């Protein structure tokens, strides 16, 4: 079975580096790079939307895509 994957879009100028998305990502897609989040393992994204829901700064968008 192929799970739907997502594409993480990060709007860097909105990110304040609070680390919420990094901590709650179940597949460790995201990591901090000098107080700005980056998608270190984009292929692991399962489009669970946890980061988009909890990003207080409107800096993450997850686009669902069919695998």
């Amino acid at each position, binding site marked *: 079975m192929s799970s739907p994957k997502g594409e993480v*879009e990060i709007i860097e*100028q*909105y990110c*304040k*580096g*609070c*680390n*919420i998305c990094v*901590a*709650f990502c179940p597949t460790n897609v995201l990591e901090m790079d000098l107080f700005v989040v980056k998608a270190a393992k984009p292929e692991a994204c399962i489009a669970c939307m946890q980061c*988009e*829901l*909890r*990003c*207080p*700064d*409107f*800096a993450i*968008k*997850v*686009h*669902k895509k069919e695998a």
Partner: protein
Amino acid sequence: MAYDYDSSIRPGKLPHIWCPGCGHGIVMKGLIRAMDTCELDRKNTAIVSGIGCASRLPGYLDACTLHTAHGRAAAFATGVKMAKPEMDVIVCGGDGDGTAIGGNHFIHACRRNINMTYVLMNNFIYGMTGGQFSPCTPTGDKASTTPYGNPDPIFDISKLAIGAGASFVARTTAFHATQIDKLIAEGIKHKGMAVIEILDDCPTTYGRRNKFRSVVEMMERLKDMAVPVAAAAKLPAEKLEGKILTGILHQEDKPEYTAQYAEVIKKAQGA
């Protein structure tokens, strides 16, 4: 697809002023989703706030917004609703704004059961004014004005709202992001005063004075504190110590104020 928040936000307003990790942004997302769920016409929706970090929220939203005096959001919102009963009125505010400085306006809006939705972001402290303790700062915790710990007992906002007469009271936390929009949407649909208390985190003025090492630690605490109402009914009392109940805490049908007032106008005009 990613959720379309941008069409509800005034162009050029982001990034917002809130500190890194402040839960108000999560609540704002929830409020946008709730307004979309209820298909609110933004030209017919008034979002009213007082002063404080939480009260900056309406300024970002593309709707009819009103930024008023400290604590007076409920009073201004009552005015808007009385003048234009067909409008949907949403009030945003913090715990200091809503229950201390505006405590009287808050309880009387609840008592009248006027049809509005009060989204109360409880971050346990006065954030914007410099970290003074609020009526919701837990006993023993530190604030800029209680460096040796706060001796005061706290207000339970939800119980206060129920006691004052609000006909819909719900509570959740900033961690429970999907519950935020569901409860606000229920509140908007409810005819009468709906109070939605959202426990929030303030890493800058509350967290750093109370030994929270990170925003994530504060979020984890909110997660651990919350017990859904249905689950709490099955738990023994000792397991509920230090926990807070989340979900819809109170809902009843009661006469709504603008409808009652329309009756008064009819009577006065001799109809």
